[in-house]
């Protein structure tokens, strides 16, 4: 109450030099969230017996699940990049009627429960689905295959890349592109030599978020692709089903997932940090 009267002066003070007490207060206030986010991870690490962990590593089902997860997430991230980039550029550079509607529609898979995505994919690409029935006549069956896993992952994860890429492209100043155009660069040259190099740190972080989301994808996968070891049983599915049989198996996979995710995020952040500094 007393502070509120002197509020403007404190603000100007803080601009001049950081006030350690404020930092301490901020840290204390951040602590509950930090602890809440970190304790469950710590609990998992502490719970597992290192010997069981090592024994489980040789379990073929675990190896299969890891391999399948790596292959499918690579594909789904690549699909997001390949097909998401034009869409993101369109949304960032062309302002048209219905643009914001389109933008909202693209966000939907991010907010919908993945199980909704699974049902949607099943009734679209399933044997009796809108597109699936037609594919089935052509002899192509998608549900319960590895392709279905990739499709499920792409559906829920690509919007993360697209949304980020839109922001990345929008951040590249139009004048720079126009300057290149005046100098005679073709639109493709402008994109490859001006827009992409300037936007790529943002694109990369978008890709990482997409990959991470794909790696954790569960609901849409189990509904649309089912569960078959080596074919559609990715790490999250193996963790879920392992929980019901042998919690140590689940914990092993969970820790691997944790470690891999942490490493990738850390490496990408390091690359980005270096890149941002040199910009």
């Amino acid at each position, binding site marked *: 109450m007393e502070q509120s009267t002197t509020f403007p002066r404190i603000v100007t003070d803080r601009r001049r030099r950081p006030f350690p007490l404020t930092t301490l207060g901020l840290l204390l206030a951040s602590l509950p969230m930090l602890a809440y986010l970190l304790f469950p991870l710590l609990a998992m690490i502490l719970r597992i017996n290192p010997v069981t962990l090592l024994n489980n590593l040789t379990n073929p089902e675990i190896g299969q699940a890891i391999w399948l997860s790596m292959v499918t997430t690579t594909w789904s991230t690549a699909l997001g990049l390949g097909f998401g980039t034009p869409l993101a550029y369109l949304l960032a550079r062309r302002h048209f009627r219905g643009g914001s509607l389109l933008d909202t529609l693209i966000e939907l898979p991010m907010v919908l429960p993945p199980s909704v995505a699974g049902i949607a994919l099943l009734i679209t690409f399933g044997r009796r689905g809108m597109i699936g029935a037609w594919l089935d006549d052509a002899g192509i069956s998608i549900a319960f295959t590895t392709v279905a896993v990739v499709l499920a992952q792409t559906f829920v994860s690509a919007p993360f890349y697209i949304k980020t890429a839109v922001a990345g492209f929008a951040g590249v100043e139009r004048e720079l592109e126009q300057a290149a155009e005046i100098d005679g660069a073709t639109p493709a040259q402008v994109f490859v030599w001006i827009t992409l190099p300037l936007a790529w*740190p943002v694109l990369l972080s978008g890709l990482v978020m997409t990959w991470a989301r794909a790696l954790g994808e569960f609901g849409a996968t*189990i509904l649309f692709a089912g569960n078959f070891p080596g074919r559609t049983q990715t790490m999250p599915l193996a963790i879920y*089903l392992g929980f*019901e049989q042998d*919690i140590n198996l689940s914990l092993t996979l969970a820790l691997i997932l944790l470690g891999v995710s942490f490493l990738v995020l850390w490496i990408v952040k390091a690359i980005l940090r270096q890149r*941002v500094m040199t910009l």
Partner: protein
Amino acid sequence: MLWLPSAVLPTEAPVKHSPIAILTLLLTLLIAACGAPAAQSPPSPPAPTTAPTNAPTAPTAVAGTTLTVFAAASLTDAFKAIKPAFEAAHPGVTVVYNFAGAQQLAAQINEGAPADVFASANKKQIDVVISSSKIISGTAQTFVRNRLVVITPKANPAGITSLKDLAKPGLKLIFEAKAVPAGQYSLDFLTKASTLPEYTSAYSSTVLSNVVSYEDNVRSVLSKIVLGEGDAGIVYTTDAATVVDKINTIAIPDELNVIAVYPIAPLANSKIPDMAKAFIAYVLSPEGQQVLATYGFIPH
């Protein structure tokens, strides 16, 4: 300069005095770690409190009492029908169900999920809970039986009309995972059939090579067959009975069928053991058995 969304990039806030900040952080973390056990103890009342088991006061009709029943997915419809009758007979009690694969429920209970009654689709999952002392050995009793049936979508695109047809090449069969009781029973059925000359010894492996998915529970097998995504699946007769107009059934003869035995037991750490026992008694009573029978279960 390039505009970068702060939420996306790892651009840290300009912390100039980072050593102090890190030290403070470590210190406060340490304090938090010391305080953590105290802070964690209140929200875990379902921890092993064995005391109320022989509590003298029987909370027969305390208004607002909630009885939590963990029940196998195949019991969904029958138990939902039992709920109003039981609640009418025990005013003030609300029955809350958690339906899932019995193996999942057992894992949840063992990890401390609060439950008063566990109704499993096989003895194995009851034993899993007994092994962690959350159910006292000898308190489980069989309350109903069930049997398996092969189902196909109504349109039956693969033309499956007999059990032998399950071995036709190129089918898409949807089974339950081995951890799910119905999944284990399905394997038992295939093994038994393989010993008979009319099915040949390769029957089991041929049928299994047609499986495209091992689902997490019976109901999701049922849904995928109803949707026509699979050519055939194996579920309980009781599950098939809920969607008779959308599927065809192929009976599995008794000599090959596995009669699933459903045990029910009170949880040792239930806060309302008398109510848990009352629920089990109701399920075993003629009225309860009658309800279960109307959903296709075989009385115990």
